């Protein structure tokens, strides 16, 4: 059965309303300010470090994102907390909020499809995050210039930009998950806790658990252990398992993009290193290629989560 009209009627209207709501909401503004303050501090500290040590590194600027100093984690670390937390904060009450405010049936009685509401909410939140991340990105680049006084090279800017895009893709995963839970759970508090719980699981517990499971399934070979090496079978399984986590995928992509000397992700085999000059930087295209499966993985996860949410939402009763 063909539906009349466009599924995207009203999409832009919903998206702009969501954007305006988020950008003026206290919880978003506070989080953004906190991260901006952290950015200033970490970049300042990183600048002191960078000045003292490597002066002739051609990828100086990228160090601002990754350098951690003493007890202060890197900007990248703060970002890897900020992105999921804010994504979840923006989307955990998307649909159940409309239900509980009893606005859903009124809005859906206007000439729009449910598609427009759902997609508009997703894009509105993603756009909000993109705005926040662009601001942070510009802040880091600007502060970097200010603190060391050398302008970044074209390749550095290009890498930093790809990093920005990948971060937005990563945000999409958590947005789609929070949106899905806002459809599945009628209570916003339950949805928020479930999403945050899942994120903490992937961020903190899963990397450890992946190693443990790998050791049980493929017990380490004592001959490798005697040499102080990891058994290849165990290592591969651990890697496969840990890549089920979006946080791991994002981490790997970031390593490939921000460290141009990365030649492969995960355990490295001698064959991959043959003919390679260790420590020589790769061109950006090659770095992206290394991380491509991970990037596609993140995109696919986002799409999958969104589609599940879409199907459930289409069939859901509108009444409260």
């Amino acid at each position, binding site marked *: *059965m063909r*539906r*009349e*009209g466009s599924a995207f*009627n*009203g999409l832009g*209207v*919903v998206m702009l*309303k969501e954007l305006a709501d988020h950008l003026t909401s206290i919880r978003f503004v506070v989080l953004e300010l906190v991260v901006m303050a952290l950015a200033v501090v970490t970049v300042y500290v990183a600048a002191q470090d960078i000045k003292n040590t490597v002066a002739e590194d051609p990828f100086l600027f990228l160090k601002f994102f990754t350098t951690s100093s003493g007890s202060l984690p890197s900007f990248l670390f703060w970002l890897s907390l900020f992105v999921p937390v804010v994504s979840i904060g923006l989307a955990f009450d998307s649909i159940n909020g409309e239900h509980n*405010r*009893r*606005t859903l*049936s*009124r*809005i*859906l*009685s*206007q*000439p*729009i*499809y449910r598609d427009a509401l759902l997609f508009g909410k997703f894009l509105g939140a993603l756009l909000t995050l993109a705005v926040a991340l662009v601001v942070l990105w510009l802040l880091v680049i600007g502060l970097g210039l200010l603190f060391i006084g050398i302008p970044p090279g074209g390749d550095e800017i290009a890498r930093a930009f790809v990093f920005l895009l990948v971060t937005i893709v990563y945000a999409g995963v958590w947005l789609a998950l929070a949106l899905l839970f806002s459809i599945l759970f009628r209570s916003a508090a339950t949805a928020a806790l479930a999403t945050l719980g899942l994120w903490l699981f992937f961020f903190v517990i899963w990397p450890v658990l992946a190693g443990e499971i790998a050791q049980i399934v493929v017990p380490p070979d004592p001959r490798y252990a005697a040499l102080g090496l990891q058994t290849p079978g165990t290592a591969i399984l651990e890697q496969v398992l840990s890549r089920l986590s979006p946080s791991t995928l994002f981490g790997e992509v970031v390593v490939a993009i921000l460290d141009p000397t990365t030649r492969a992700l995960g355990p490295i085999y001698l064959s991959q290193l043959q003919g390679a000059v260790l420590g020589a930087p790769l061109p950006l295209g090659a770095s992206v290629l290394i991380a491509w499966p991970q990037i596609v993985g993140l995109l696919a996860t986002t799409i999958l989560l969104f589609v599940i949410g879409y199907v459930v939402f289409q069939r859901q*009763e*509108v*009444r*409260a």
Partner: protein
Amino acid sequence: MSADTVIEADGLTKAYGRKVAVDHISFTVGRGEIFGLLGPNGAGKTTTILMLLGLTDISDGKVNVLGFDPAREPLSVKRRVGYLPDEVGFYEQLTAADNLRYTARLIGFTSMDREKRIAEALDRVGLAEFADNRVGTFSRGMRQRLGLAEILMKGAQIAILDEPTSGLDPHATSELLGIIRRFKAEGVSVLLSSHLLERVQSVCDRVALFSAGRIALIGSVSELGREVLGAGYVVDIEADGAGLADRLALIPGVSRVEQTGIGKLRLHAERDVRPEAAAEVVALHGRLKYLGVQEPSLEAIYTHYFENRPDETLKEGARNAA
């Protein structure tokens, strides 16, 4: 569907799993008519409304709204029909006007058109001075009126109102019913649901009495009264004049005259005998203080109908439980 019919339901059915919420109901609503869906909680009123709007799937039967099928052409239906849900909600942090602006954008009105429509609609429901107040500060009655303003702004041909008066005090209720009457005056058809029989009977042209997912009775209140209660008209009169009671009893069609107080009489008749009764008072040179005809009460019709059909009601209950 005839030109004067705006809603036509034929064998409309909704089943939630094995529970039948709406069971093969058929009715039509005419242009400019106020049609009431009345019945106790859980009778299937809201479910019927959601099917008319294409907001829930239809299990069986056909429905036609303004010539469109809500399941196949939901946008055409929703563009022309305004809906006030049961316990309507708005975005609390936005003002009344901003809430309507959002809806107007979703409908697709241009910005100039939008502002004009919003100002007019708010004015007509008496919310003009609250246009820039946040809805969070609104009372229940104001929210209901804002919901009606949304329908006015939309320029809907049909207004579907689910329990529009629930939770309102008598004053707010009569205000709201006043607005609903004005809908009718402008040619907008109204379909409203309620479980409060006596409040809405005054505005409805026709009603459908729901019971356990089925329409038990359908028609105008006075038709139903005569059909179910078997009663004719009851005319109350307060006047003086010697021998008035005897003379009134002679009016053709009057079956009984009852003394209800000093100078107060009640006539039971098979038709509306108010003109003749007035003429008699005048002929006796008496003074006429009050003359009125009692509408049969829906409450009485409803109770009477279901009391006299206990086995049928029981059967329905059993079928739904099965």
